[in-house]
């Protein structure tokens, strides 16, 4: 086995077949089409305006995917003005004017001492390249030959490249250059595509069209690995299998198989793959993408779209859980010395209850379809749960006074992911509408092991007896109080844990979309009420 190390830039551990993209420049074909005829200012200006509007339209079509595209539109506008001035005053043809503009602006940024600003040169390169391609015959899409589950290898990628890539085939990206603050890195994180960058010279030793494993959390690429490593991967196949039928155990007990999702696209994909609903909608994504806390209308639009996409099935929204490994780019928090034990989850929301109420109002307004449930993360005491519930009630009466409709039946549930919530499970079962067990955090808090620490790898084990016993306590408390309980951590998505979870009394699982079919198959092979 050989390991190559770069900088981790977007998390996820995947396997895939490498596909190398070489240096990209205008094709010989493109160059031959350059005008040799004498310079006519109006002709060149006209050609450029046309090219610029092609690029403008393409970026506009992607505005909803990321606000990076809005920034690109603004930069494009600026570049275009400079190019037109050059054509008119410098008597340059359109293509040369783009090139002159590119090198002048890039030089400005490349001299800056700030890494973030230096990365902006990438944006200029990107836009000028799009303009050049639009001015000539363009280029053949170099990503077309990508096969299923590809790990893309390149010197650098630009934001506009992602518009050419079929993302259903993309498993991960490894780059020679690049920085964590580049827009390609931000986009990879937004779209949850594992990314390792800054690999340097060693990238040349990664073979083309071979299976490799890459770990976006640690910035590692493995070549010539052992077979066992592959089976140990939580496989993130780029396309998920469908299974639209309900899952009954061998003896006829129906188990709900819900899905975890982090944005609207994932909700749609999960429902299309046969999820019985969304058991966990993380809301961090709405907060991570922007430059500031999203307002009520922005949040409402997303929650409402997600609720409609569920086609009548339930949608469980978890309120903001930042802190720990999920920090906001514009966070108002000082970094905790020990973030896992610091201000995260409901603690943040209660501390900044203005931000929390904006989210609760948006969720309530989106609840008119009647399929939304809401839950609070990182609860450790019934008082905390009550405080959050009071804020929810406050929002409800505000909306009532304003005459804004919402689902009156909406009652909050909670994540069970702290040892305190396990120990007090029966108290919580009296106040919460439902439980959702987050096995990832619960396991690391119960075992006092950081799951991202490479030295304790393997110790963060949800098959540990202490974790099993905790699950049993929680399920028993929920059943005694007659409230629903589901499991939404990685354990739920692990087919090897399905039998155990059913034996512990769990009847509802929320899993990764790519595991829906596999988990349903596991359920069908189980018998619960053994004679």
């Amino acid at each position, binding site marked *: 086995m050989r390991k190559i190390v770069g900088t981790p830039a977007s998390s996820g551990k995947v396997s895939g077949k490498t596909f190398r993209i070489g240096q990209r420049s205008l094709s010989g074909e493109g160059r031959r089409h350059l005008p040799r005829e004498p310079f006519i200012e109006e002709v060149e200006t006209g050609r450029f305006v046309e090219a610029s509007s092609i690029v403008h339209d393409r970026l506009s079509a992607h505005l909803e995917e990321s606000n990076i595209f809005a920034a690109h539109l603004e930069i494009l506008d600026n570049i275009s003005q400079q190019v037109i001035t050059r054509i008119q005053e410098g008597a340059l043809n359109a293509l040369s004017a783009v090139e002159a503009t590119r090198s002048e602006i890039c030089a400005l940024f490349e001299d800056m001492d700030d890494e973030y*600003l230096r990365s902006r040169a990438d944006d200029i390169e990107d836009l000028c390249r799009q303009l050049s391609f639009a001015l000539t015959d363009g280029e053949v899409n170099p990503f077309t030959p990508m096969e299923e589950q590809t790990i893309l290898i390149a010197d650098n990628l630009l934001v506009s490249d992602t518009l050419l890539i079929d993302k259903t085939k993309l498993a991960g990206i490894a780059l020679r250059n690049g920085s964590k603050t580049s*827009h390609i890195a931000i986009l990879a994180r937004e779209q949850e595509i594992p990314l390792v960058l800054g690999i340097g010279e060693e990238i040349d030793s990664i073979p083309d069209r071979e299976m490799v494993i890459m770990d976006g959390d640690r910035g590692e690429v493995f070549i010539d690995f052992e077979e066992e490593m592959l089976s140990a991967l939580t496989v993130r196949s780029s396309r998920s299998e469908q299974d639209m039928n309900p899952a009954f155990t061998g003896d006829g007990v129906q188990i709900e198989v819900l899905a975890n999702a982090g944005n609207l696209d994932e909700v749609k994909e999960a429902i299309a793959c046969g999820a019985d609903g969304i058991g966990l909608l993380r809301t961090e994504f709405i907060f991570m993408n922007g430059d*500031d806390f999203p307002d009520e209308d922005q949040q409402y639009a997303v929650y409402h779209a997600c609720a409609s996409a569920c086609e009548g099935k339930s949608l469980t929204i978890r309120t903001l859980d930042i802190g720990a490994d999920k920090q906001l780019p514009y966070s108002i928090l000082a970094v905790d010395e020990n973030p896992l034990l610091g201000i995260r989850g409901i603690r943040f929301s209660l501390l900044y209850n203005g931000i929390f109420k904006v989210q609760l109002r948006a969720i309530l307004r989106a609840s008119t379809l009647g399929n939304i449930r809401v839950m609070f993360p990182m609860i450790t005491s019934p008082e905390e749960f009550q405080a959050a519930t009071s804020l929810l009630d406050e929002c409800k009466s505000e909306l009532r006074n304003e005459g804004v409709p919402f689902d009156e039946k909406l009652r909050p549930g909670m994540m069970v992911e702290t040892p305190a919530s396990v120990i007090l499970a029966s108290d919580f079962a009296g106040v919460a509408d439902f439980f959702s067990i987050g096995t990832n955090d619960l396991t690391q808090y119960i075992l006092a092991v950081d799951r991202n620490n490479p030295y304790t790898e393997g110790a963060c084990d949800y098959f540990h007896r202490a974790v099993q016993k905790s699950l049993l306590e929680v399920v028993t408390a929920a059943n005694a109080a007659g409230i629903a309980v589901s499991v939404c951590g990685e354990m739920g998505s692990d087919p090897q844990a399905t039998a155990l979870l059913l034996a512990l009394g769990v009847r509802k699982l929320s899993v990764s979309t790519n595991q829906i079919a596999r988990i349903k198959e596991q359920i069908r092979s189980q018998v619960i009420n053994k004679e």
Partner: protein
Amino acid sequence: MEAIIVLEASNGLHARPAAELAAMAKRFKSNIILTAGTKEVNARNILSLLTLGLKQGSVINLRVEGDDCEAAFEEVTRFFEHIGQ
């Protein structure tokens, strides 16, 4: 109209807020001029804004001149308060 602003946004004035500011500046007739250190730029120009290299704590001199300067001044100062939160 003039004001001195200390940039509070933890990441400085990066591309996406700069795009927002440039788009905002274009909606007004007034010239919105930012000065930081020895550089002076027009806020309509996103690339100039970026080359100011504004970081958290940078001191900016804001100057707004023109017919609709009061409205422009208010919106721009609100923008800076907003990204600092």
